[in-house]
Every structure is written in C-alpha cells, then in structure tokens.
C-alpha cells in the first residue's frame, strides 16, 4: 500500500463486506436439537460465576456446570463450556458460537424477548453490597440513594437501579464491581444474591463486604436460541432430575438448596 488513503479504503471495504456476511448468517432454529445432535456437542456459554459456574483444578464445576453436563449426557452429547462476554450473550447465541446460556441467568423481559428460556429453577434477588463497617446506615431503599454505585453493564442489577432512577457507573463484570467496592473507588454495587453467598462475608474473597437491601426478587433460567426445541427438552430433564433427587443432591453440594424452585 503506497498511500494511507488506499489502506483506509481497503479496510472500509473489508469491514462492509464483513457486515453483509454477518447479516446473511441468520437462519431459522426450528430444528435446534437436530442441529446439536448432528454436531454431537452442546456448547454452553458461561462466565466465571461462583457457585454456578467456576473453575476448580482446571475443570468447570458448580451447580449449573454439573446440571449442564448431566443434561448433555442425557441427550447423548458432549458438553463444551465456553466463556463469553455477558453483554454479548444473545449475539453469541444467534451466531451459533454457543447453544445455550447456562450461568445463573436472571429471566428479565429483555432475556425472555431475546431467547427461548427454560422454566425457572432458582429464586434470586439483586442485593446492594457495601463495606461491612458502613452497613448499618444503608438498611432501607431510601438510604442508598446517594451512594456512588457501580454495577455490571447490562445486568439485572443495572435494570433495578434504572427503575429507581439511581445513577451508577458500569463495570464489565460483577466481580469487577465487587472489586470497586472493596477498593473504595465506589461505595456500593448491586449483585446477585446467589453470588453474594459465595463471594462476600467471612471466609470468602471479600470478608469486609456485606449485603444489605434486596432490590427485587427474581428467578434464574437457562436460555436457548429463539424458537429452539431444546428449552422444552430441558424442562423435561429438570422435572425428571428433581424427581429422582439428583438435582437436589447437586444443589445441596453447592449450598444453594434453599433457593431452589421445585420442578
């Protein structure tokens, strides 16, 4: 390339071509179970989110991870875990980079519109996390208004703060938001109650943090491509697994049985 203008023109053409190609790649998902049977793997989109999906000795474990393995096995498939950017989960699904999002996903209206979702299996809440020594002042919804908040961008917690018209900064993950509060660069964050169980308080990564106000209550579900028949198959699997006690045993193992919803 002799001149920078030529180079720029070349790259623009390339980018436009890539856009066109991406636009063409959509097709219908009516035969989604046939599609995964065909390739023999179930690709599960997750983030590092204890106690649902997290790494131990190089292997993905957690309540969701074990259930996902079992579900894939019941279909005769190999489970494959892929870490995704939480913000782009719907896109990853549509582009068929993953086959489902199984990661303690709150069933918000946005999620239900963008995906085919399973029956809810956990009760969760969005909770406000502050430093333990300041917790006494922030026990009700009015007291938290003036805190400097940080939340994961696009999370259920962000939606709750939007609804309350409380301003906040956005972080890339819930773990980043927790680190902001621990470092004192933000005063409070909003995370999932189930995550709070695992990550904050005595004996955890952040012993000096605690949660105070519950902003809502909500439920977790698993997301598939819009129109996929795999959602119904999972509901059957949940019911059977709950019936024979496997699901309860796994929930007990990870200390989350209290939050589980009967199937």
């Amino acid at each position, binding site marked *: 390339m002799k001149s920078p203008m030529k180079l720029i023109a070349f*790259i*623009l053409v390339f980018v436009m071509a890539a856009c066109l190609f991406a636009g063409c790649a959509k097709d219908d998902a009516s035969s989604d179970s046939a599609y995964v049977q065909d390739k023999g793997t179930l690709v599960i989109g997750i983030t590092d989110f204890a106690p649902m999906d997290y790494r131990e000795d190089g292997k993905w474990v957690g309540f969701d991870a074990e259930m996902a393995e079992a579900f894939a096995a019941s279909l005769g498939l190999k489970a494959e875990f892929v870490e995704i950017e939480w913000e782009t989960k719907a896109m990853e699904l549509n582009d068929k980079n993953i086959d489902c999002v199984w990661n303690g996903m709150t069933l918000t209206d946005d999620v239900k519109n963008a995906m085919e979702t399973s029956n809810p299996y956990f009760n969760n809440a969005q909770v406000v996390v502050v430093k333990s020594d300041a917790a006494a002042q922030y026990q009700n919804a009015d007291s938290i208004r003036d805190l400097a908040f940080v939340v994961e961008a696009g999370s259920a917690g962000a939606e709750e703060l939007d609804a309350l018209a409380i301003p906040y900064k*956005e972080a890339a993950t819930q773990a980043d938001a927790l680190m902001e509060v*621990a470092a*004192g*660069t933000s005063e409070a964050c909003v995370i999932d109650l189930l995550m709070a169980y695992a990550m904050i308080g005595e004996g955890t990564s952040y012993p000096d943090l605690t949660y105070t106000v519950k902003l809502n209550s909500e439920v977790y579900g698993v997301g598939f491509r819009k129109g996929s028949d795999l959602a119904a198959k999972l509901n059957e699997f949940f019911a059977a697994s709950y019936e024979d006690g496997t699901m309860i045993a796994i929930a007990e193992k990870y200390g989350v049985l209290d939050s589980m919803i009967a199937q």
Partner: protein
Amino acid sequence: MVENVIKALQGGFLVSLELFGLTLLGALPLGLVISFGSMSRIKPLAWLTRGFVWIVRGSPLMLQLLVIFYGPGLLFGWNVWGGSDSGRMIAALTAFILNYACYFSEIYRGGIEGIPQGQREAGQVLGMTRPQIFFRVTLLQLVKRILPPISNEVITLVKDTSLARVILVYELMWEGQRFIKSAGIIWPLFFTGVFYLVFTGLLTILFRRLEKRLDYFTV
C-alpha cells in the same frame, strides 16, 4: 438510533482524545528525563532508572492501570483517586504517562547514543557551548532518527487508550461496546473502528509529512 450511537461515540472519542493528548504532553518530556537518568554517569541512578524502565516496559499496561487505581484501596484501605470520573482519568493518565515515558526514554536513548561522537566533537573544537551543540547540532539529527519509532508508539497509544476502560474510564471502545449488550447490535463497533482508523490515518499522514520535511539531509 444512528444519532444516539454517533453521539455516544463522540463522547467516548473526546475522552480517548483527552487521554491521548495529555499522555503525549506528559510522556514526551518525561521520557527525556528518564533517558538522561538511564544514561547517567552516577551508576546507582542509572541502574535504578533502567530497573524501573524494565518493570514498566515488561509488564502489561492493563496490569499497571489496575494496580495504580485499585492497589492503594485494596492493599492499604487508602483510596487515593476517589471514584469520580476526573479521579479515574487522573489515575489513567498517571499509568499511561509513566508507561509511555519509559517507552519513549528507550527510543531517546537509542537515538542519542546513535549520533556519531564526531558530530559533538566537531562542535566542541569549533568552540560551541554544550547547549549550542545540543540545540544546533544534535537535536535535529535526534528528531530525524527517532521520528519513525516515535510515530509507531504514538499510533499504538491511540489504540491503547481503550485499555482505560478497565478502571471504568468510558472511552471510545467502551461506548462502542455498550450497544451490543443483550439486544445484540454490533454495527456501532464498526463505527468505533472507523473512528480509530481515521484518527490513526491522520496521524500516519502527519508523521509522514514530518519525516518528509527532514528528508533534505541524511544521518
């Protein structure tokens, strides 16, 4: 929608531009100071400076951003930056200026050491003072020598500004990415790409002009 995206990207672009401009403003002169330190005849000072440069150049800028911004709060419970946008910007600038000054210092050092000793000696035997030799003889030759590597670093800096988002400085890249979210629209990212391309394209042209203006002599 397009209007919203452009507006958001413009906001992000201004933050990136601020980060870019102020980093250069701080790092270009600081780099010269550091290069003098690393060439110092006082050996402990030279070793200390070179050790510092090694650490800064040898570790990722993202790590430095995280350590500088979160380190004091997490390690000592003493958050020095505050959580405001300006506090975050100052922390980001601190990391960027230190990081780039170290890169520039090595470029300066190579440039200064590459100028033949004879150029300085010729000035000396003609009775010129040290400042006269530096400003009238060495400097322009130095500029000509370091312009290509400096322009590389400057263009890398344009793209590196996107790292500031790890401490929640909402620069261009963050603004482009936020539109993806659950709705799954990706085209704002391509707009972001165009912003970067135009910016680096202009810088490329600018540096090529500067290099051309110094084409009249060889070093």
